[in-house]
C-alpha cells in the first residue's frame, strides 16, 4: 500500500481525517 504522506493531497486528506477522529474523541470525552 502506498504511503499517503508521499503525496501532498494524501497528507492533507490524512490531516482532515485525523482532525475528524480527534474531534469525535474530544466531543465524546466532553459528553457531547
Amino acid at each position, binding site marked *: 500500500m502506498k504511503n499517503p*504522506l508521499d503525496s501532498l493531497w494524501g497528507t492533507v486528506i490524512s*490531516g482532515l481525517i485525523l482532525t475528524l477522529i480527534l474531534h469525535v474523541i474530544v466531543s465524546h470525552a466532553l459528553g457531547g
Partner: protein
Amino acid sequence: MDWVPAISRWIHLLAGVMWIGLLYYFNFVNVAAAKAAAADGTAAGISKHVMPRALFWFRWAAVVTWLAGAALLGRHFLDAFLFLNKSYYAIGVGAWLGTLMLINVWGLIWPNQKKILGMVQATDEEKNRARRVAFLASRTNTMFSLPMLYFMAAGAHTALYFG
C-alpha cells in the same frame, strides 16, 4: 490588562505563523521546486542559499511558539497536558500535537537536514536515508498541523466547536 497571557498569545501567534508558514513552504512549494531544480541542474542554489536560512527561522520559530504557548497556559499547563480539566481538553490535544511537531523538528527534521545539506559528514547512503526520514517527518508535521490548528482554535472557542 494581564500582560503575560496577552503578550504570550501575541508571540505564540507570530512565531506560530512563521513556523507553520515555513512548514507549508517546504511541503507545498519546496519539495516540488527542489525536484524540478534537480532535473535542470539548478538545485545547488536552493540547498546553499535558501534551505539553511529557512531552516534556521523554522526550527527557532518552533521553539518560541512552544515556549510562548507554555507561558500562555501558565498554571493550567498540567490541566492541558494531563487532561485534568475538561475546559482544557481541546487545547490539551492541540498542545500535544504541537509538542510532537516540535520533537519532529529538532529530533528528526533538523538532524537529517544537516546531513542532506552537508553541514555534517554523511555517506551517499546516509544522505538518501536522511532525505526520506526528513521528508516523512515534515509530511507528518503537515498532517498534524491540520488538527493542531483546529484544536488551537477550539481551545479558545470551545463552545463554538463542542457546544
